[in-house]
């Protein structure tokens, strides 16, 4: 194993329902400067920049252009991924692996409070057919939830346990937006949004930003005593139309994770990974994604949760940060998973630290119902 790309700096903002007290550029400047400070570099050291955001959430087109000043990209090459921040990391890695960049900043931001999240997500769909029927991330997610739950006989209460676990663990995460002791009954009693998804099953609408600094092998070693390496990475895209996919089959995530495991030399993820940060916008997705990434057999996601395998202190804790249930700025979520994974491997997870974590998985998705899937393995 000879990893080529290091993560030498990370930073995230606190997730909040409304950061209207500061401009987007203010938030992004803070998070970028903090990532640079963490990496021990300054703007002159940056060779390239990758941003991640989506125009419709930003309420303007080519919306990365408003960030030029604050991501340090004046007179430098910048590219932009209109999708999840973990996908943007692939773009950053490519620049480094191609030899075009030694040090690359990857930053993602979103203000969920600016617009209407589900109204905007309606625009993800085909405007000629699907959009007019009112399809959005919520109703599409509900189709997938039922498909999955019927196939394996998963109950709403079993999904509710994901929420209880994540909200509880989020209390250890100073960046969380929602964190508290909750009960299965509370989740079950929360208003029904799109059967079987209830209000508490869904990630909140959030504002936030996240940044990481990537470095080549040489710079990683030079700049950092103990760099965290990207040991494996895989990405895969499923069909756009929901009706063309096997909603529960999840081939895209199976392929993305298998590729990442193969690169990292992992045969048994449950045994060889120490912690996983998973992007699940709805409670059922955490169960489904953990199965597809091979942490357990198909239909056993709820069982291993119930047995405590994926809880803090379990064999493979999933989302010690609270995951997206604790805060969910669109596109920022996947990059946040990587930041959390890096902090775990550094042993800097504070109250949410998984003891002795050496290898961590970060997972991101883009599009509806996990159309695009990204998996990364980081370690020392």
């Amino acid at each position, binding site marked *: 194993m000879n990893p080529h790309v290091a993560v030498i700096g990370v930073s995230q903002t606190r997730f909040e329902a409304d950061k*209207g007290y500061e401009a987007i550029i*203010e938030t992004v400047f803070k998070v970028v400067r903090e990532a640079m400070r963490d990496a021990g570099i300054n703007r002159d050291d940056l060779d390239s920049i990758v941003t991640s955001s989506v125009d419709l959430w930003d309420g303007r087109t080519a919306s990365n252009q408003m960030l030029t000043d*604050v991501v340090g990209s004046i007179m430098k090459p910048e590219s932009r991924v209109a999708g999840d921040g973990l996908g943007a990391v692939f773009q950053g890695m490519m620049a480094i692996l191609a030899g075009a960049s030694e040090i690359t900043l990857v930053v993602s931001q979103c203000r969920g*409070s*600016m*617009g209407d999240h589900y109204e905007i997500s309606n*625009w993800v769909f085909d405007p000629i057919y699907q959009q007019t029927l009112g399809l959005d991330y919520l109703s599409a997610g509900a189709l997938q939830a039922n498909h999955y739950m019927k196939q394996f006989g998963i109950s709403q209460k079993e999904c509710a346990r994901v929420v209880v676990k994540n909200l509880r663990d989020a209390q250890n995460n100073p960046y969380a937006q929602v964190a508290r002791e909750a009960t299965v009954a509370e989740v079950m009693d929360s208003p029904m949004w799109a059967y079987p998804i209830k209000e508490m099953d869904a990630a909140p609408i959030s504002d936030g930003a996240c940044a990481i600094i990537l470095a080549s092998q040489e710079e990683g070693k030079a700049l950092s005593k103990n760099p965290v390496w990207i040991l494996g990475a895989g990405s895969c895209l499923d069909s756009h139309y929901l009706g063309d996919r096997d909603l529960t089959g999840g081939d895209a995530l199976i392929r993305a994770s298998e590729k990442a495991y193969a690169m990292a030399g992992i045969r048994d993820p449950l045994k060889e990974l120490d912690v996983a940060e998973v992007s699940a916008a709805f409670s059922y997705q955490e169960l489904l994604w953990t199965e597809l990434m091979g942490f357990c057999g198909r239909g056993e996601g709820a069982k291993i949760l119930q047995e405590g395998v994926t809880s803090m202190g379990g064999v493979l804790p999933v989302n010690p940060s609270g995951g997206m249930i604790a805060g969910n700025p669109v596109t920022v979520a996947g990059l946040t998973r990587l930041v959390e994974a890096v902090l775990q491997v550094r042993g800097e997870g504070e109250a949410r630290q998984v003891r002795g974590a050496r290898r961590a998985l970060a997972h991101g998705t883009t599009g509806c119902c996990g159309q695009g899937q990204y998996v990364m393995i980081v370690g020392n």
Partner: protein
Amino acid sequence: MKRNSQQEELLRVPVHMKLHYRFPAGAHYDKFFEEMKETGKIMGVKCPECERVLLPPRPVCGECFVRTGEWVQVGPKGTVVAYTSIYFPFVDGTTGKPRPIPYGAGLIQLDGAYSAINHILEEGDPEKLHIGMRVEAVLTEEREGNIGDILYFKTIEE
């Protein structure tokens, strides 16, 4: 099925995009418009390193990658650094009404500012517009704290 030819038009679906936003303007725009509304002053913000006075005011100087510092009053007189005359109708976002055409649009470097700002020029005749011409901001009587508080820039003789 129709063939895609010049004789037969294929289906086109009219779509109206209607989304709602509340843009977080941030503390710098907040002060910029508050000052314009209350005192009629146009304020820029100075970078402590390169000492450029930036407009519109903002929290960060991108060139120096540092926080900006003190507020500086600029204008209301300035110099046109680029101009055009617009001959197509444009609905004025602050009034909701179409602006009479032709109208002048320019980049105006206000006295004391580094950045030139976009705005409307009272003069719409391209024959009467030129780079380097002097102009002055004309503000509305009843100001609301938005960019419409500056009606336009009028030509001045000095």
